[in-house]
């Protein structure tokens, strides 16, 4: 118990850093994801294919490798980034690639008749997008977007690999001083899980049509 009260403040400080990194990455990453999603549904085949290739490549690379690439690799090309910036860049790129698939599905889910109706009412392409397509598409994707945002938060733990003092790094530092690795990592795990479970509760609130939860016997 004393262990908890001694080290919880440090860990909460780490949690704050993690949360900030996640928040910045989400705020920057989602609009990029939407843009890529729009490009992936473009009527120009070239744009569509180019976008899909970029998305597949970035979705196919492990997060750790992407962070290594940005933090240890880019300096070779003359671009040295601070560890925090490197992590945020990696998370933004990754979030954009992953959420573009979510946005794409949302955009394709908008009924064709609605687009046709917008056209026949004389709306411009932008008006159609702004007033007809996006409101429906964004509403449809809110749950997967929340759950992906939680993943982004979890991936801030990669900051451990490049020495950012986020939650996991601070836990490791405490462990290496007190040798109570199990205690401190369990504590960190509780903090991570709390955030995820809170988000999952939020999703249950947002979701109206709940699927059956128990087998029917």
């Amino acid at each position, binding site marked *: 118990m004393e262990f908890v009260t001694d080290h919880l403040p440090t860990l909460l400080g780490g949690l704050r850093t993690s949360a900030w990194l996640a928040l910045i990455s989400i705020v920057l990453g989602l609009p990029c994801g939407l843009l890529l999603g729009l490009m992936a549904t473009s009527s120009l085949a070239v744009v569509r294919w180019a976008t899909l290739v970029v998305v597949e490549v970035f979705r196919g*690379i492990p997060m*750790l490798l*992407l962070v*290594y690439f940005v933090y240890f690799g880019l300096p070779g090309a003359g671009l040295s980034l601070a560890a925090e910036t490197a992590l945020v860049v990696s998370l933004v790129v990754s979030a954009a690639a992953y959420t573009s698939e979510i946005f794409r599905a949302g955009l394709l889910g908008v009924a064709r008749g609605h687009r046709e109706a917008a056209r026949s009412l004389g709306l411009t392409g932008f008006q159609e997008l702004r007033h007809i397509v996006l409101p429906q598409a964004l509403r449809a994707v809110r749950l997967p977007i929340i759950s992906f945002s939680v993943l982004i938060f979890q991936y801030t733990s990669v900051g451990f690999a490049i020495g950012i003092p986020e939650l996991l790094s601070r836990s490791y530092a405490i462990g290496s001083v007190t040798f109570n*690795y199990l205690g401190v990592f369990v504590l*960190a795990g509780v903090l991570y899980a*709390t955030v995820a479970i809170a988000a999952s509760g939020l999703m249950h609130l947002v979701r109206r049509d709940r699927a059956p939860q128990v*087998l029917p016997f």
Partner: protein
Amino acid sequence: MNQLDWGRVLEAIGAGIGYTVGLTVIAFLGGMILGFPVALMRVSRIRALRWIGTAYVEICRGVPVVAWMLLIFYGLADLIGTDPLIAATVALTVVATAYIAENYRAALLHVPLGQWEAAVSLGLTRRQLFWRVIAPQGVTIALAPSATYAIGLLKESAFAAVIGVSDIAFQARTLTQSGQPGLATFAVAGAVYLLLSLPIAAAARTIDRRMRTRSAM
């Protein structure tokens, strides 16, 4: 900037492939086996079991994979020894079990109601109904999403590098520490992960297609 030593890079990364693939395969199989009882608990009528199952899934998915790696490697060394490969396998299996359990759960709940009704009207006992009718279909339905999840698992396995498993990501990092150019080395490593995910993706598509044609009959 120095040139990429192709021979050295390919040799080292090639040596890492075994670890990456082995980790992924074992964690996947472990998750496929252990995930089923967890899913059963998740959909049980018995509230206590449901609670345990839900807690397992939420906690295991709520804690980042890197944190699991550190917790098990440093925290449980007394229990499982100090081999990072064992720790990484356990960590990845713990997480895979939770994700695959959710696939089983969704699949069990989506076995068509007619199957239940038919089984009941044939006079099957509850036990027969579940093990002969529902479970086989549930497992089959869960195969396609689980195969897709295997691609995610392949990428998550890279976090084993953080605790010192000599997988692809670890080899790439070591190569750059000994003077190989970062951009090219990490790009090669990323390409190898992409290549490894191709057969899994093909398998997932095949399973999905077969399932669709079968259910259409």
